[in-house]
């Protein structure tokens, strides 16, 4: 079973998905993230899909659920690194991942998360360098 490790970087939880996930691994990730949010009170979740070559409707919906659960627990979720082939497939499947913020790669994902967390604290005009 390929468990996706959840790593904490300051106030952000990072999950880097590296393999083709079994359904149960994806469900485990959802549980692990929720548990970690409860324990740490982290403000952001970064899901890195840079090396993922296939996202079907099951995983797509699960990602949406993770974002919704995280939101209830006070954290923003950013999904980073969706590959073009995966994005095109998701669109054709009719999935748009509403409620999920996205970034081109993990670096930009971290920047976006900082921005989102800052906005929570300081409002839309809070200082940031973009």
């Amino acid at each position, binding site marked *: 079973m390929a468990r996706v490790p959840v790593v904490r970087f300051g106030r952000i939880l990072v999950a880097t998905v590296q393999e083709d996930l079994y359904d149960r691994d994806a469900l485990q990730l959802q549980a692990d993230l929720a548990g970690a949010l409860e324990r740490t009170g982290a403000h952001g979740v970064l899901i890195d899909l840079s090396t993922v070559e296939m996202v079907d409707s099951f995983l797509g919906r699960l990602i949406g659920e993770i974002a919704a659960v995280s939101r209830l627990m006070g954290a923003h979720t950013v999904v980073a690194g*969706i590959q073009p082939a995966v994005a095109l497939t*998701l669109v054709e499947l009719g999935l748009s991942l509403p409620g999920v913020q996205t970034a*081109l790669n993990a670096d930009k994902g971290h920047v976006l998360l900082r921005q989102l967390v800052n906005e929570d604290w300081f409002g839309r005009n809070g200082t940031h360098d973009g």
Partner: protein
Amino acid sequence: MTQPATKAQTPASVDAQTALVAQQRQTITELETPVIQVWPGVLALPLVGTIDTMRAQEMNEALLERIVATGSEIVLLDITGVPVVDTAVARHLLETVTAGRLLGAEVMIVGLSAKTAMTIVHLGLDLGGITTRVSMAKGLELAFHRLGLEVVPRREHDARAITADGSGI
């Protein structure tokens, strides 16, 4: 069973022909979907003509590749040259917006004429939350704003600083 060719073709010439057709197809695709980087982080994609499913797919593929290559976060999709925006075309545009969004880029639709805007409303099409502007210029203005940039006139005394050979600053 394929029909025999009416003129003798060697396997090599058939291969060459197939390669040429593939090459031309590639060129047509690139001409049809010119993705232009108008500013660091801003891509522009002017559409001309009708958009069918195949063209939409090719356009999305080309656009996403450029988003990855340039790291752009804003795309200005210009539909000035699209004659009719009906339900099918609107769906394709929505798909392009979604595809870009999944890669962290905001796709704005610019070049909406009054006629197109009224058609969309009359058809009851929901472009749910997509940012739209009437022109590329307006889209650029918004893009700059998003990037924290502003275009302002140069200050007056700068205009007088013309060098001896008249070349300006």
